[in-house]
C-alpha cells in the first residue's frame, strides 16, 4: 500500500513540477522520491530519529527515513488515527508522543518495510530512541544508539566522531555495505553549497513583507532527508531564486502582512485550515520557523565525520535551554516578529517542557507568545473552533501591544 502511495505521489508531483516548476513542488517531489526509495532493492533501509547524519547513511547506500517525519506524513494523509488506536490498544500511553505512537502502530500493522538498520540519537528525546527500540522488537533488529554529548568541547566532538565510526561498523555488519569515503566527502561539499542557499532563503524572509507565505517553508526541517545530496542544493537554490525574485519585484508571500509570527518547533501535521484563515482573514503570517534556523558552520570535507559530529553537538536543542532560548530570541529580533506560537505538542518534553522558559525569554524582549496545547499528530481531540478563538484573542492582543 505504502509503495503504491509513494509511487503515485512521485508521479503526480513530477507531472505538477513539469507543468509549473516551483520550489515547494520540487521539495515535496524530492521527499516523495526518498519515500519511494525505501522500496528500491538497490538501497538498504534505515529507520532513524531526526538527528542522525544522513550524509553517512547515503554514502553507504542506506536510505534513511526518520520516524518523526513518517508520523507527520501519516497524520498529513489522515491515517495516523488508525495507528494511534492500534498502539494505544497494545498499551502505549496517550501521554507519550503521538509521532512515536503513530510509527509504532504503523510498524505493528505491517505498513512499514523491514529495516536493515535502526539508529536512534539521544537528542532531541529519549522517546524517539524508545520508539525505535520497540520497532527493533517488531522487526527483530538490533538498534544502534548515538549518545549526543550536551557540551561543545573538542573531547565531546571526538566522542561523537568515534561513535560515528562504530555506527559505520554497525551498518556494515547489518547490510554488508561499505562507506564510500569519496561520496561522503562530496556530500559535505553539497551540504556546504545547500547551506549557503538556505542562509540566503532565511535572510530573504527577514524582508517586510516576507516573500514566503506560512506554508512555503512548512516542515522544511525534513530537508534533512536530502542532506548532502545534489537534490538538496537544487531545492535550496530554487527557493532562493523564487524568494529573491519575489523580493526584487516586491511580491509578498500573501496579500497582507499585518502580523509577523514565529512558529516554535513542529507544525500541526494533520489537515487544518488554521494558517490559511489566519493569513487570509487576519493577515497573520509565519515568517520564521524556529527549526529552519541554520545553526551550523560550514563543514570541512577533509574531516567529514568530525564536521558532522560538530554540526549535531552545536544544535540549539542540545544541552541546556539557554542555547535554544538565545536562538529563539535572536530569530524574534532578526525577523521583527510581532508574536510567537508554540503548539506545545502534547507528549513532547522539549516544546511543552520548556514552555515557561520560551515565554520568559520572549517576554524580556517584549514579544508575546501563545501556547496552543495541541497534539500536532493526533487529530482525534483537535478542537479547531477553540484553537481559532484563542488565536483570534492572541492577534487582538497583538494589535494593541
Amino acid at each position, binding site marked *: 500500500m505504502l509503495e503504491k502511495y509513494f509511487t503515485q505521489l512521485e508521479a503526480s508531483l513530477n507531472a505538477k513540477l513539469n507543468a509549473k516548476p516551483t520550489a515547494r513542488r520540487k521539495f515535496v517531489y524530492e521527499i516523495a522520491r526518498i519515500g519511494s526509495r525505501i522500496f528500491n532493492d538497490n538501497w538498504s533501509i534505515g529507520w532513524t530519529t531526526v538527528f542522525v547524519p544522513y550524509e553517512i547513511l547515503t554514502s553507504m547506500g542506506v536510505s534513511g527515513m526518520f520516524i518523526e517525519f513518517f508520523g507527520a506524513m501519516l497524520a498529513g494523509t489522515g491515517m495516523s488515527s488508525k495507528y494511534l488506536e492500534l498502539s494505544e490498544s497494545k*498499551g502505549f500511553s496517550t501521554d*507519550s508522543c503521538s509521532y512515536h505512537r503513530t510509527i509504532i502502530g504503523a510498524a505493528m500493522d505491517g505498513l512499514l518495510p523491514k529495516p536493515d538498520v535502526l539508529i536512534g540519537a539521544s537528542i532531541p528525546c529519549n522517546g524517539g530512541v524508545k520508539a525505535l527500540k520497540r520497532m527493533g522488537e517488531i522487526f527483530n533488529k538490533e538498534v544502534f544508539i548515538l549518545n549526543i554529548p550536551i557540551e561543545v568541547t573538542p573531547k565531546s566532538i571526538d566522542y561523537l566522531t568515534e561513535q560515528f565510526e562504530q555506527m559505520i561498523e554497525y551498518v556494515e555488519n547489518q547490510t554488508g555495505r561499505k562507506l564510500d569515503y569519496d561520496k561522503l566527502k562530496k556530500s559535505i561539499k553539497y551540504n556546504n553549497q545547500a547551506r549557503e542557499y538556505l542562509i540566503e532563503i532565511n535572510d530573504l524572509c527577514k524582508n517586510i513583507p516576507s516573500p514566503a507565505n506560512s506554508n512555503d517553508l512548512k516542515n522544511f526541517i525534513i530537508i534533512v532527508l536530502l542532506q548532502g545530496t545534489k537534490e538538496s542544493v537544487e531545492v535550496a537554490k530554487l527557493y532562493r531564486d523564487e524568494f529573491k525574485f519575489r523580493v526584487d519585484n516586491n511580491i509578498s508571500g500573501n496579500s497582507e502582512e499585518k502580523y509577523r509570527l514565529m512558529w516554535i518547533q513542529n507544525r500541526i501535521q494533520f489537515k487544518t485550515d488554521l494558517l490559511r484563515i489566519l493569513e487570509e482573514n487576519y493577515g497573520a503570517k509565519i515568517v520564521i520557523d524556529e527549526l529552519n534556523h541554520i545553526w551550523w558552520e560550514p563543514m570541512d570535507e577533509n574531516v567529514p565525520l568530525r564536521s558532522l559530529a560538530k554540526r549535531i553537538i552545536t544544535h540549539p536543542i542540545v544541552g541546556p*535551554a539557554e542555547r535554544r532560548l538565545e536562538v529563539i530570541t535572536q530569530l524574534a529580533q532578526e525577523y521583527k516578529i510581532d508574536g510567537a506560537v508554540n503548539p506545545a505538542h502534547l507528549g513532547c518534553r522539549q516544546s511543552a*517542557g520548556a514552555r515557561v522558559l520560551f515565554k520568559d525569554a520572549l517576554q524580556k524582549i517584549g514579544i508575546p507568545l501563545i501556547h496552543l496545547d495541541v497534539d500536532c499528530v493526533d487529530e482525534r481531540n483537535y478542537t479547531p473552533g477553540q484553537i481559532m478563538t484563542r488565536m483570534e484573542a492572541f492577534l487582538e492582543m497583538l494589535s494593541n501591544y
Partner: protein
Amino acid sequence: MRRLHDVWKRYVPTKFIHILDIPMGTLSLGTSYLREEFNKLKIALEKHASITISDEDIKDAIEVFSKSRLIYNQLNSLRTENPPSISGTDLMNLTSDFFKMEPKIWNDNTQGILKEIKIKTQNGALNNNPRILLSGSPLHEINFISFIEEIGLNIVYEDLCTGSKFFDLVIKDSQDVLTSLSEAYLNRTPCARMMQIKERVNQIYRTAEKFRVDGVIHHSLKFCDTHLYDVPTLKTMLTEKGLNVLFIESDGGLGNINQIRTRIEAFSEIIKSKKKVKENSIQ
C-alpha cells in the same frame, strides 16, 4: 530531565546545580565519557566548596557507601524469607532516611536496627500476604508503599532507583577510581533509561525468583517516557515468564487513590486465587 534542570535553574534558587550527561545503551565508549563527566562533577564541587577532592577521599566515600549497601542488603535479605520479617514500608522508611542523612550516621543507626529486627522476628512471622516486586519510576512517597501493604500485599523488593535497586551496585578496585565508578554505574543492573529491556526483564525475573514474588506491580509516573514506552514490552515479557503483572500510572502521590486501590485489590484477588489453585493441585 534536561528540561527539569533548565526550569529548576531558572526558578529555584540553588547554590549548586550541575547536570551529569550519562550515556545510555551499551557502547564501550561510554565508560571513558562518563569518567570524564564524573571528573567534571568533581571539579565543579571542588570549585563550589573551595576544597580539593583526592582519590583517597573518593575511595573513603566508596567504602562508606559500600558499607551502606552491605547493611541494606542484609536487611533486604530478611524479605527473601516467607513471610518477610521486615515490611516494605519499614525498609522504605530506612531507604528514605539514607537519601536525607549523612551515610556514616545512617550506617551506624541502621546496623542497630538490623540487630533489633533479628531479635524481634524470632518471635514469629509478620503475615502471609502475597509477595510483590515493585518496579518502575523513582518513588519518594513512602505512603505509596504503605498504601499497597495496607491493601494486603507485601512489598518484598523495590526495583526502583530510590529503592532496593539503588543498593545493587558493586564497585571494583582499579588503578583509577573514577574509571571504577564509571564502569560500575554503566554496567549495573540497567534501569529503563539504559534502553536494555531484555537485560532488565531478566534481572527482574531473577530477583522475583530469589524473593519468591507472587506478582509484579509496575508503576510509572505520568508523562514519564522512560517507563511509559517500555510498558507494553515489559508487561508481555514478564507475563511470558509466568509472572503476574499489574501496571499502574500515577502522579507519584495518592491523588487517584481509590481507583488505584480497586485495581490493586483486584490484582491481589487474582494472585490469591491463582495461589489457591496451585496449592490445591499440589495437594
